């Protein structure tokens, strides 16, 4: 009996213990239960993510989209970054080759590291732009004949020199609002005495491989402006005009005078060659095409230009090609015109006098030519 009681008690104790343990366990298990539950929920979540990825990959495979990932190791290594002294990231030594590029403006091939300065001039920007612009206009004007709608021809003429480039067209149109855009083809024929010569000049132009020096393409006005303020002597090497001051020590006054005569159309080919300016006269397009170097005819032409200018309204734009400040016209002209007048009066030299007397032309023309030589 006792034994059974003991056993019973033991069992009770055991049960209690168990119960206690169970109770405690229950307590913990609630906590661990929660942790377990959380873990399970977590596992479900991550497995769902993984399954999602598997579906994506499987789908890509079945749809053939995996093709994009076919990369070969060798192909990859080709592009590995190189980090060694003396070499760039591509494993190349620093660039030594001289590269070339094509100017979008004038279609010329030139050295890449000289592109920016070239483009500046080509597009008519920067310090020399106004001079360059007026040079071009002056050229355009020297090709004008007695006709009323010179606008188109100006454009065409300069375009003939350079080729019908759109950017040039735009530039000219912004510079000269009166001028309308027109196709080269239509208007070339309108210049009767010029056409054949123009073709010649075009031919020579092309033959020279587009190496026309800049000053050639300048208008008379532009040339005058330049020659008013700078030395202007054409270098034999670069075929460019000297931009130093009027008294630059590198060139003599004689050279300066020669340049002025040359550029302002008073010299014949032969005389120039004799002078040894070293310039290819065949590039002197405007002069050649008209008068074969006859300065007389050119002066008359200049006369007509002035008259034409007097008739039409002067444009406020800088491209107005007024050659001088005759009478009342001077007031309407831009500052440049004013300056020219002023200079004309104050300066003078034997050469200018010479040119004056030799022409025997109208006073206007004389005045026009007077200020070309400012030494």
């Amino acid at each position, binding site marked *: 009996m006792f034994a059974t009681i003991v056993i019973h008690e033991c069992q009770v104790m055991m049960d209690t213990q168990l119960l206690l343990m169970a109770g405690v366990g229950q307590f913990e298990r609630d906590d661990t239960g929660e942790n377990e539950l959380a873990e399970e929920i977590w596992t479900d979540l991550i497995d769902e993510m993984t399954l999602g990825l598997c579906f994506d990959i499987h789908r890509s495979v079945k749809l053939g989209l995996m093709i994009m990932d076919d990369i070969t190791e060798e192909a990859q290594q080709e592009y590995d970054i190189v980090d060694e002294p003396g070499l760039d990231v591509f494993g190349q030594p620093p660039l030594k080759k001289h590269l070339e590029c094509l100017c979008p403006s004038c279609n010329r091939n030139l050295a890449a590291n000289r*592109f920016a300065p070239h483009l500046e001039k080509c597009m008519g920007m920067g310090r020399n732009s106004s001079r360059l612009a007026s040079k071009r206009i002056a050229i355009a004007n020297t090709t004008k004949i007695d006709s009323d709608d010179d606008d188109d021809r100006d454009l065409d003429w300069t375009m003939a020199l350079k080729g019908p480039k759109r950017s040039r067209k735009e530039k000219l149109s912004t510079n000269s609002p009166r001028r309308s855009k027109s196709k080269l083809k239509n208007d070339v024929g309108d210049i009767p005495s010029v056409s054949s010569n123009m073709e010649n000049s075009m031919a020579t132009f092309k033959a020279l491989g587009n190496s026309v020096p800049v000053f050639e393409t300048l208008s008379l006005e532009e040339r005058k402006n330049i020659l008013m303020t700078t030395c202007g002597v054409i270098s034999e090497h670069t075929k460019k005009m000297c931009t130093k001051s009027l008294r630059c020590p590198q060139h003599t006054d004689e050279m300066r005078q020669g340049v002025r005569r040359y550029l302002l159309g008073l010299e014949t080919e032969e005389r120039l060659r004799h002078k040894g300016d070293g310039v290819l006269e065949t590039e002197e397009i405007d002069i050649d095409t008209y008068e074969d170097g006859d300065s007389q005819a050119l002066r008359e032409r200049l006369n007509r230009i002035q008259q034409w200018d007097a008739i039409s309204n002067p444009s406020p734009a800088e491209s107005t090609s007024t050659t001088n400040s005759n009478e009342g016209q001077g007031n309407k002209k831009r500052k440049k015109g004013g300056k020219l007048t002023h200079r004309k009066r104050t300066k003078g030299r034997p050469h200018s006098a010479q040119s004056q007397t030799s022409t025997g032309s109208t006073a206007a023309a004389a005045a026009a030519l007077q200020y070309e030589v400012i030494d």
Partner: protein
Amino acid sequence: MSLSGCPHVAAFKKSKGTKPFRIIQAFFVSCSSVENVKRKARAGSCHVCQQCNQRLHACLTCVFFGCYTMGHIQDHARSTKHNLAVDMTHGTVFCVPCGDYVYDSEFEQISQEERLNCSKFHGSSVQGFSAWEATGYEIELLRRNPTRKKVSGSSTIGLRGLINLGNTCFMNCIVQALTHTPLLRDFFLSDKHHCENERSRDNCLVCEMTRVFQEFYSGIRSVHIPYRLLHLVWTHARHLAGYEQQDAHEFFIAALDVLHRHCKGHNGASGNNPNHCNCIIDQIFTGGLQSDVTCQACKGISTTVDPFWDISLDLGPSSSSNSAPLPVPIIVPTPLPDFSLDSNSSGSSTSSSSLHNGDSGLMSPPGFDDVPHSLDDCLRRFTRPEYLGSSAKIKCSVCQNYQESTKQLTMKTLPLVACFHLKRFEHSSRFRKKISTFISFPHELDMTPYMSTHRRANGLSHHPRSNRTTTSDNQYSLFAVVNHHGSLEAGHYTCYVRQHQDQWFKCDDALITKASVHDVLQSEGYLLFYHKRILEYE
């Protein structure tokens, strides 16, 4: 293989159409209403074993849910000959006879639509976004052109030297910075620009930029000659005329302006109101600068917000500008753990408290007249309240009178890419000089202290730690630095750009070399480009 499913799917569609699929998608896979959600919760368990996490599938033919892993759905299919079942988590279709999942274009379309409804319902930020996938035609192209270039962490693709066209190093540096602007790169490489004007494609700077990006990612190692780019920029920004060495900052702004104009097409739509433009340039670079003018008499504030593409920072009084570079500890790039490291917070609270005291004299706390040594110093100077002085009285609309006032600049909205311009070049009528003081700049930048919400002219101090979630939006990472070397007369620009998250490269015209973060952070710094770390969808 294509999205044509399998014969069993075809047969099913023939007899029952696509409605059953749609129902399952809408009700159980992508729930788009409270009702559906409740229904899914209650009914979403296996009819056999009541479990819900064993890849539950819904039979497409009848109302039966069964586990996949336990084989219940497969058993059901075999016994009923209902061949198709839909995974209730992902919406994919399993074909029992085929033994695998199959893809049908009509079903996919339905899935997408329902997913869109679902995300709208949940107010999820990413609505309707699906990654790009090659179409059949593109796959064919790819198959026929097997050479691939993978832009990996160790590849040079994306880097290219630029030749100097004659003092054009300023342009080269800006081009490098732009081609390494991640968002811009993504835009151009994904061909997002559709040129409005057919005829003037050659004249469009944006088209040219597309070409430049193509060149950079072509894998070609030889140097690129950006002559067309120069021509176009000069054509469209004539005020940049001239061959002389130019300012990189000026070029940057001009380039952005031309790109911005061309992005909007050549239709002549002027869009002078920058607020209405949504071109990529505006999306990336435009921020809003708030200017608060406080009338000293009535304390009324007049606020204006102006758009900006860059922030030009004054470098302090020029007298001390030529001091030798001060040794400054390098800030190693680490993710911003908590704001106790942000020295800005202390600075701002002092300033706001001093304002709170109602100082009418010079508002800026002492020390701001000193030379700034860091980008944060510069930004503090930039956003400090400035007493405008008795000679510059502003008409106050409240007082109806001219009053003395203070002005404060703060950032109203930050651009995705922020460009900081350190004003190192002084151009006065008498002299021009370069300020070479060392200004340290961090790899990671927190713009919170300079935001309008943070600083107020009248001193409402916002504790920087108060709103942690919004400040995560103001974290920026450096990705490009343009430096100027030498003097004003004879100088050269180079830049550092970052690729692949943590690799820096030095770009010196045609020469691209690897650089270290140290090099970058120790450089002088003229233009600093930062991009937002975290982008939010709108």
